[in-house]
């Protein structure tokens, strides 16, 4: 039986982990390769790097990070952030990423999703959707796509967009609720289930995890195939193992290999 995936996400800027990872004694808490290796050993099902490097000169630092991680970790790795061209996708895959996530560029140019998917296969093209609720109380619920880290509204309906990018060849959706991101109040379950039920590909729920029950809800109620979290793992609130055991106890199929 296919297992639910638990995916820690590391924000990487200029080749360094933002905020650091404190769940084990690392020689260098800011070294993404060390953090990745620790998560590999801890039983994470996949790993996600989000490159938030702003300056153009340092854009290439992520390739080194990916390459060194792929040399040490025999687990699937998704890399996103600033992916704008087929050449960006190729370079990340060649460095050792298994999947590449496309965000703003998919909104600006949907043909890019089709082009990347045809070139490299749907299995490695993830479209990252940042969605925010725009409907008021009493109105029919609606979520729209926001870009640039949730700052720029696009007016595009999130469910329509998800269907569109899947039809164009996205193999997976990484769905982040911008209303919940950073709040630790739990996933936006209505949003997650609306998207997961609308598309045929797996959906990764993201944004808002504060407790282990939130992870369970994302899958059981949100119908996500995988859950992504950052701070609850990085700061050592919970281990990957604790999360997976908790989810298994709630009746979800989890990989608990030793």
């Amino acid at each position, binding site marked *: *039986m296919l297992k639910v*995936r638990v995916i820690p996400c590391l924000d990487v800027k200029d080749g360094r982990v933002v905020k650091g990872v404190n769940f084990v004694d690392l020689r260098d808490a800011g070294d993404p390769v060390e953090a990745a290796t620790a998560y590999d050993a801890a039983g994470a*099902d996949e790993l996600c790097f989000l490159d938030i490097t702003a300056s153009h000169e340092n854009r290439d630092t992520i390739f080194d990070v990916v390459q060194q991680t792929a040399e040490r970790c*025999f*687990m699937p790795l998704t890399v996103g952030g600033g992916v704008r061209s087929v050449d960006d996708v190729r370079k990340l895959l060649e460095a050792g990423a*298994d999947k590449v996530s496309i965000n703003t560029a998919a909104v600006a140019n949907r043909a890019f999703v089709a082009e990347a998917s045809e070139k490299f*296969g*749907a299995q490695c093209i993830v479209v990252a959707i940042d969605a925010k609720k725009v409907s008021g109380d009493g109105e029919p619920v609606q979520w729209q796509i926001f870009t640039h880290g949730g700052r720029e509204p696009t007016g595009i309906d999130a469910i329509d967009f998800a269907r569109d990018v899947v039809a164009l060849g996205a193999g997976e959706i990484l769905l982040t609720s911008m209303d919940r991101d950073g709040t630790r109040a739990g996933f936006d379950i209505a949003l997650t289930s609306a998207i997961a039920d609308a598309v045929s590909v*797996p959906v990764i729920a993201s944004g808002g995890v504060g407790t282990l029950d939130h992870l369970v809800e994302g899958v059981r109620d949100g119908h996500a195939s995988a859950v992504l979290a950052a701070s609850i793992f990085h700061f050592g609130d919970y281990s990957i193992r604790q999360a997976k055991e908790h989810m298994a106890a709630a009746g979800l199929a989890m990989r608990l*290999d030793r």
Partner: protein
Amino acid sequence: MSVAIIDYGSGNLHSAAKAFERASAELAKPLSIELTRDPDAVRGADRIVLPGVGAFADCRAGLMAIDGMLEALEETVRAAQRPFLGICVGMQLMAERGLEHGLTPGFGWIGGEVQPIAPGDPDLKIPHMGWNTIQMVNQHPLLAGIPTGDDGLHAYFVHSYHLLPSDERDLVATTDYGGPVTAMVARDTFAGTQFHPEKSQKLGLKLISNFLQWAP
């Protein structure tokens, strides 16, 4: 021992090469691993690995674009009977034909074709993506020492198609995704996994280690 990993423009060879290096280090077996697109390097290798991600037709086209590679594979694997491991689409290419993006011929080493997976449960997502256990159908040395079955180790899958062998004896293992899905096939000196051993942590490294010691 020398291992040739065929580089035909199909994605992530780096991690495959690193996984082979790790497995050989654990065996304390000196190994030279070459990523190559040279048919003569394939002829000179003791073991051959064909990775592959993407679509069947694209992978086939990429391989055929290398002059003499298919012939080199036929000579070393079929005629000289050297051990061969196909991974993901590299495994699917061993079939007679694939149905992804139109009908495309494969190598024809394993009878049968590569068809879309069709889970019995319509709610199951395609691609089949993530960690799943494998069920052994026929014993094979590459699975020696690997716990299989529902309580066994997990392998990492990412695919929408699978190879359905026409001869049941070629099927080594399946995985359950709304019904049986082919996880591994083998015959003579060639074997293939639908899952990615280079991404499958413990199970993957053990399988690679078994491949390096395989004496068919």
